[in-house]
């Protein structure tokens, strides 16, 4: 029993190869390749309908893939029924058993496994303490708040010490403030348990806050996998640059290449772009798409400068958001901290905005 206690680190890796799922002719998952390291917190992030739940439920065993394989700890689980996979699952909407108290909900997986009664009680108590719910043990799910229900679902998925925890939009039904607190809690829980977590969300902030790595999904494919910071700094495609945070986009042709920089000719003028390793080699004349983060924009002269008219300037407390439009019709949104002496630009005013050559990233068009 002690060896199975939820505070013992226990972790397994997951490897998904060539996984596809078709509903009729519709490809919900297309050739998915994904590795999740033992003890890692990985989040599947993507817009609604991108296939996140389908992928998670394939791992859980509720969706039968059309092709491909899922290996857990090196062994294929593709033909294992869900009840034998032994993964904890937190379902969208929690799926607590309404006719059972919190205690009985937690006891269920242990009862099913034939654990002796005395041990069940101890284990349930221990897990309830882990999620700080001991005082609500005799309540029914409908007597709990959304956040409490979420923690019951979490506890129920952990009580039988699964090596892998799968979470489908665990914060989906909660309000923003609560979400933030629970994100931190879940993150700490993951650290303490040391188990492999696969989380699903469409909320990029949540993904960034909690995950070791994020796999970005769109239209049934995984487009990029990486640490939150890497994805934010070097998004591979235009979709990611816009989905993970916000971006401005510029399109142009490579006109000159030096060792470290490229000159790119756009409608609004020449732009200096610092070359990155991840971008591979550029050739002269090639069309490129550049993403530019709003917080990289500064007011006034910079290595790259555009003259533009202020469309709107909004003060948002910790920063200001300034939207400008160039003569050529290109819209640029900038976010900047204002020093005390600084004034917000006036709408309609002619100003200069700029950025460093290192601020732009070449992204693939979608």
């Amino acid at each position, binding site marked *: 029993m002690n060896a199975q206690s939820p505070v013992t680190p226990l972790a397994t890796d997951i490897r998904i190869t060539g996984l596809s799922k078709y509903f009729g002719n519709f490809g919900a998952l297309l050739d998915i390749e994904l590795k999740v390291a033992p003890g890692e917190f990985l989040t599947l992030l993507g817009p609604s309908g991108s296939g996140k739940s389908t992928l998670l439920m394939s791992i859980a065993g*509720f969706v039968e893939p059309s092709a491909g394989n899922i290996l857990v700890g090196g062994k294929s689980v593709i033909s294992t029924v*869900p*009840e034998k996979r032994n993964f904890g699952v937190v*379902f969208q909407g929690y*799926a607590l*058993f309404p006719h059972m108290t919190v205690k009985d909900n937690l006891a269920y997986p242990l009862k*099913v496994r034939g654990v002796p009664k005395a041990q069940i009680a101890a284990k349930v108590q221990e897990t309830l303490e882990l999620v700080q719910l001991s005082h609500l043990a005799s309540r029914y799910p409908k007597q709990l708040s959304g956040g409490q229900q979420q923690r019951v679902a979490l506890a129920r998925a952990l009580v039988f010490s699964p090596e892998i925890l799968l979470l489908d939009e665990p914060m989906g039904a909660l309000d923003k403030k609560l979400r933030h607190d629970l994100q931190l809690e879940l993150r700490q829980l993951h650290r303490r348990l040391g188990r492999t977590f696969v989380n699903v969300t469409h909320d990029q902030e949540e993904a960034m806050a909690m995950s070791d790595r994020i796999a970005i999904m769109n239209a049934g494919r995984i487009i990029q996998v990486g640490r939150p910071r890497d994805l934010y700094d070097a998004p591979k495609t235009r979709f990611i640059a816009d989905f993970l945070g916000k971006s401005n986009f510029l399109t142009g042709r490579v006109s000159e290449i030096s060792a470290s920089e490229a000159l790119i000719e756009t409608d609004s003028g020449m732009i200096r772009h610092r070359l990155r390793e991840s971008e591979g080699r550029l050739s002269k004349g090639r069309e490129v798409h550049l993403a530019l983060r709003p917080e990289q924009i500064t007011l006034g002269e910079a290595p790259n400068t555009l003259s533009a008219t202020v469309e709107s300037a909004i003060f948002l407390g910790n920063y200001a958001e300034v939207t400008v439009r160039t003569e050529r019709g290109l819209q640029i949104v900038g976010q900047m901290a204002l020093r005390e002496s600084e004034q917000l630009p006036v709408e309609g005013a002619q100003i200069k905005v700029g950025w460093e050559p290192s601020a732009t990233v070449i992204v693939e068009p979608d």
Partner: protein
Amino acid sequence: MENRSSLPKVLVITIAWLVIGFLIAPMFVTFPISLTSERYLSMPDGEISFRHYQTLVEDSAWISAFMDSLIVATGTVVVSLTIGTLAAIGLWQIGGRPAQMLRILPLLPLIVPPVVSALALSRAWVMLRMLDTYPAVIISHSILALPFVFMTVSASLESVDKRIVQAARSLGSGPFRSVFGIVIPNVKAGLFTGGLFAFFVSWDEIVVTLFITGRNVFTLPRKIWSDLRDSIDPAIAALSSLMIAVTIVVAAIYLTNTLLKQRKTPKE
């Protein structure tokens, strides 16, 4: 403003009372007739007698008809509840458009006129050489009761999260145990109501029963039917009064129970 809203209200209440009066008026005739001391249908003439109630309890034909009805109705509850519940749970789990289309199937017996069902069923039982047997009557009544069970259980399921079945399986229980251990306890109310409906569908079914029974299976409605044809016996009024009384008692118990339960709804 007040007039505009209160006039229709008065109208609605009046109509409601008229309908209620229309529904319960027969009781005011049936009950007195059952107390007559004569051997034919008549209002008691100063003298009140319980002889017709006595007939009901003593006459073996009435008792055996009652037992037949009880057997058939109980069988109908078991069969229609089993099939109706499984169908409801199955379609609930499938969900989406295919389920919506299939949903019509269990409701079909409701749309088909009873005479048509009766004809079809009697033909079928003749062919299977099962006419006038308990299984045949039970199965026939179950078909008629199926829509009611299906509807009440489906309605109960509507407020249950479909994912609890998957949740149960992710927690280690097989598909069978997940459905019976987790889903059924959450639709108890629907099962109870559906079962009650099924029982009464069978209890007062006459059209189909007439076509598929003879001497062997002789339910209460069947007995009433044949008695009414050759003699007009006040025992029938006594029986009707009894059934009404039982219904009122059952309904009262059911209502107080639900009211009590509502009052007991868990506090925060």
